[in-house]
Structures are given as structure tokens and as C-alpha cells.
């Protein structure tokens, strides 16, 4: 069993603050972190490797310094790591990102399962996983809250959808996107940290993947961001003070407003 986990380095959006005077984002000192959702993807891969044997290879596409999230994943338990990095990959939207990651999975060759996080906290699209599946022409199971079994060349998983749980079985190889419900990620181990420090991480660029620059990075991206603005915040909220009785009366008015009128 060889499981590939795609992880992304993201700015820690939790650390982003809004400059109240200028209404812009303050990004100074915002650290880059491993996308929180991807920790669950990694943990799910480790669990099944530990049970079935095999290896977990962690992959990221990003700038050279994205290597740090790979080392973090290795410290948690990944066996191998692969950095997909090239100037030609910059500006990629989910189409170009998934196209490039799929080419890497194809080049790796013997991957049975690709796991991604549900979404990345910078773009928040949740599109990369299913797009990788489309590129590879593999089946997919998205929004997986629980993997029930992996056996006989099939994966059985629970998709958490609106109104309930769908129990889905898919042939392997397949792509799965993982929700936070699936597991509790392990912490880096001492042995893992040692390994992470020493591991040689190969970098594959556009030539290694045999891709055309027209299908990668910004050139290969059908979508483009044209403007970015800060959302309006309603600082003009109504504030209520008073005794609990007074406040309760006002609140009841608000809650029953439509009912009573």
C-alpha cells in the first residue's frame, strides 16, 4: 500500500488582523503553517499504513520554503517527501495545481490512494482533491468523516453530507478528501523529528514532470483574481445595556418580531 498525501503551506489566517484605520489586512509576521485540515489527511494515511503496511509519501507544490511543511509531516510519520517546485508553477489556480500534482502522482507510479485535506485555509476552495481525481481519471470520495476499511482493492468510507451519512465503496486507486471528524492527528515523535532533520527531499520541476508551461502556474490557470477587498464589517451594531429584565424584553421583541407583527 502506498499512500500519497497532498499538503499545502498556508499563511496562518488566524494571525491575520485587520488594520482598523485603513481597513486593510495586517500580514506582517503572519507565520506560514501546515494547512490544519491536512493534518487529518496525514493521520488517516498513517493509520492505514500502520495497519496494512506500506509507505506514506507526502507531497507539496509550492515555493522552495514550502519544504518546511514536508519536514513537519515527516516528523509526524511520513516515510518519504516530495517537493514540487518551479517558477513555472507560480500563480496556479486549482486547475493548474491539481494538474501538476496529478502529474507527480503519475510519475511516482505505484500510488494506491491519494488523500487530501478537505480544503486549504487560504483559498478555501476544497477543489484540489476532486480535480486531482479528474486529472488522474480515478474515482473519488470527498468529505470523508470516517474510513471504515481498506481491503481487496477497495476503500469503504463515510461521506458526511447534508442531512446524513453516505456509505460509499470505491475501487482503488482513488482520491479521498478528509474531514476533521475522521481522527485525531498524532504529534511529531522524537524519532520522526530526527528523520525530518536528515531526510533528503527531492525537488521535481516542470521538466521532471514533462509538463508544458502553458498547462502550469498562472499560464495554465483558467481563473484569475481581479480584485481583493476587505469585507465590510458592521461596526454599527446596536448595543443594549440594562437590567436582565430589560434586556430579556428587548431580546424577546427581536426574536418574536416577525411572529407578532
Amino acid at each position, binding site marked *: 500500500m502506498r499512500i500519497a498525501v497532498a499538503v499545502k503551506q498556508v*499563511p496562518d*489566517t*488566524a494571525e*491575520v488582523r485587520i*488594520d482598523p484605520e*485603513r481597513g*486593510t*489586512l495586517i500580514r506582517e509576521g503572519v507565520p506560514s503553517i501546515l494547512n*490544519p*485540515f491536512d493534518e487529518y489527511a496525514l493521520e488517516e494515511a498513517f493509520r492505514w499504513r500502520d495497519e496494512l503496511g506500506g509507505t506514506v509519501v507526502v507531497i507539496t507544490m509550492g515555493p522552495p520554503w514550502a519544504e518546511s511543511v514536508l519536514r513537519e509531516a515527516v516528523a509526524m510519520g511520513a516515510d518519504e517527501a516530495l517537493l514540487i517546485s518551479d517558477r513555472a508553477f507560480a*500563480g496556479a*489556480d*486549482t*486547475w493548474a495545481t*491539481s494538474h501538476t500534482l496529478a502529474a507527480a502522482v503519475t510519475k511516482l507510479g505505484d500510488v494506491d490512494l491519494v488523500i487530501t485535506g478537505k480544503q486549504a*485555509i*487560504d483559498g*478555501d476552495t*476544497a*477543489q*484540489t482533491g*476532486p480535480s486531482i*481525481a*479528474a486529472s488522474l481519471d480515478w474515482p*473519488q470520495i*470527498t*468529505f470523508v468523516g470516517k474510513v471504515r476499511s481498506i481491503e481487496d482493492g477497495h476503500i469503504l468510507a463515510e*461521506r458526511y*453530507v*447534508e*442531512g*446524513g*451519512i*453516505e*456509505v*460509499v*465503496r*470505491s*475501487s482503488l486507486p482513488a482520491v479521498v478528501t478528509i474531514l476533521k*471528524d475522521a481522527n485525531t492527528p498524532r504529534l511529531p515523535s522524537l524519532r520522526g523529528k530526527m528523520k525530518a532533520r536528515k531526510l533528503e527531499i527531492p525537488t521535481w520541476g516542470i521538466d521532471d514532470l514533462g509538463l508544458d508551461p*502553458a498547462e502550469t502556474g*498562472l*499560464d495554465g490557470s483558467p*481563473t*484569475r*483574481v*481581479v480584485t*481583493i477587498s476587505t*469585507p465590510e464589517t458592521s*461596526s454599527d*451594531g*446596536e448595543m*443594549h*445595556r440594562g437590567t436582565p429584565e430589560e*434586556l*430579556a424584553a*428587548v431580546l*424577546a421583541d427581536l*426574536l*418574536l418580531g416577525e411572529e407578532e407583527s
Partner: protein
Amino acid sequence: MASIEVRKDTCVGCGACVPACPYGVISMEDGLAIISDECYLCGACESSCSFGAIIIRQDKSEKVDISEYSGIMVLAEQRDRVVDHSTLELLGEARRLADSCGQEVLAALLTSDCGDWPARLVEHGADRVLVTSAAELTHFRTEPFTQIVSRMIEEMRPAVVLAAATTTGRDLMPRIAKNLNTGLTADCTELVIDGESGNLMQTRPAFGGNIMATIVCADTRPQMATVRPRVMKALEPDPARAGEVVEFPAAHGELDSRTEILEFLPLEEGEVDITESDIIVSGGRGVKDSTNFALLEELAGLLDASVGASRASVDAGWIPYPHQVGQTGKTVNPKTYIACGISGAIQHRVGMQSSDRIIAINKDETAPIFEFCHEGFIGDLFEILPLVIKEIKKRRS
């Protein structure tokens, strides 16, 4: 290869691009914007520059003839032969967009038995409804839906394709967009057709809701978007509206799938999907323990609401994870969100800030929630909530 350049002769050193960069890689040196190699080519700075001094060059080899594409297509979502409300919202939005540029609205309905839904989709704004019926289409399944909808798009050539940003839409649309080599914008909250270019301006929250990004797909068609449920408005059904229903039978092999659904386990009685509620009563660390959640449940019961929670109360084990709202929980946008004893940390805020009305009860006047709520109550929730419950009961009796 794509590149970014600051034109030295045009840059006036105003610095407007510095805060516009979401990655913080632009600095000012000697009155000139300097963009470091860490640039992701996201394009935010280019649009922030009033002087046209920042230029991103893109090499686009083959161009698609976008003039061949027209019309707005809505993918209907159904479970057990009942079409989801989000579809009606999308039809309302599609109608508005189509009327703004004189195009038609198409709806695609894949189901085992369409019942009277085609006519109802017309009443809600569709001009033509494409219907594919087959027993295999009772439930959404990625591969058959991808294949059939992809062929519909290739034959009908709509300029825009919309689906709801539900687990179905977000599973299906990326697959279609990748196959058709076109762009897809996730979870949009605002759509406008630009009169000049005819491009769809797709606006959506990103960076955990910290920014709104407007995205276009200028060179390929269709322009695909998933749209956040409950944001767009459905039209009042108009029985007088005329429309056409077109059978679109599945072709050989299109119903094949490598995945199968073994069973569907509906939420149990009492369990609710909080994303589908009009009112959410949500509790945070201020609720103090699990038994106190009964207070929130009682209020929720009176209001036909569901109960939400911050991560702090989920982590404390007071309420299970499916109730968590926020960055690592659910994104909700009910008509009314009542935050009780929640401080309003950014990770919580991003999951609920698009609610129509946010009511906050908190005893700390400086809690961040008061900076963005619509109605703030400064006080102790243990004093206020029982009185509100009493008051509601009294007024109703």
C-alpha cells in the same frame, strides 16, 4: 512563462500595492514597489495599482472562441426526488444574470423520477429544463453525473454553469471543470456579469473570510461557480411562466461508476444539520458546562432553531463536534445567529459572519463579537436567557 513586472517609469511609489498583497511580498524601496521572488502571481496588486504600473504577463497559447457560448445553466440538486431549495435560489440568481445580458436560463435535472419538478423549475425561472432520468440517478454519484453533465455542457454551450456549494456541488463541479479545461470559482456569494466583457465577476470570501476576492475566467468557457446556499434569493414561483422540457437520455456507459453507495444513514431524530437551520442558538465557553446547554436547547426549541457551539465548548466535551461552527467546524448563514458566551475569535467568526442577523450575549463589553454583531446584549447569559424563555412563553400564551 508568466511573469510580474513593476514599470519603473510609471510607478509613483504611492504604496497602494503593499497592503493589497495577501502574501506580504511587496515593499517600497526608493519610491518604487519591489516585488520579491516569493510572489505567488495572485494578481491582487495589479488591480490595486491606479497607474497601471504593475503588469502580469500570461502566455495563453490557444484561445477558445467564447462567443460560441451563451446562457446560464443551473445544476439542480435532488435527494430522494425532492429538489433542494438551493437550486431554486440559483435559478433566481441565474434569471437575474440572464436578464441582465439577454440570455436564457437552462436547468439540468438528473434523477430517477422527475415528477412535477421540471414544471416547477420553470416556475422558478428556467427557460429550458434538460432532464435525464434513470434508476441509477436516484442518488448523486460523481462519475455518472460528471459524464452526463459534461456532455450537456458540450452540446448546449452555456456561458455560465452554477451549482450550489454543497457537498454535492463541491464534489461534482471540480471534476467537470478539470475535464472541460475551464475555471471554477468556489463558494461564491456575489455574481455579476460585466457589461463590457461579458465576463462573470465571481466574488467570494477567502483567507478564512478575511478578504473578499473577485475572480474571472476570461479565456475559457463555461465559467463555472459553486454558490453558497442561502445567499441568493429564490423567485416567487410564477405558474404563468413558459418553458420547455427537453429529454436528455444517458448515453451508453455514462451510468457506469467505480463507486457505489451502499447505504444512506439519515441524521437521527433530534439530530439536525445546523447548516440547514434558519435560526441557530450557539454557545461558547461562557456556557460553562454541558448541563447549561439545556438552557440553549430550550430556547432553540421555542424558536424552532438548532444549537451551535464554538470550538471551546466542543473541545470541552459539552456538545458534539457536528454542532461546531467556525473554521474547523461548519460554515453557517442562518437568518438569525444568537451567540451566547462566545468571544467572537476570528476562527469562529469566519463560520458565521455571513448570517443575516447576529445577536450576541456576552458579559464582557470588550469581547470582539460586539465589533461585528448586529445586536449586542451586554450581560450575563444565565440571567438573560431564562427571562427570555419566560417572556417568549408568556407572550405566546
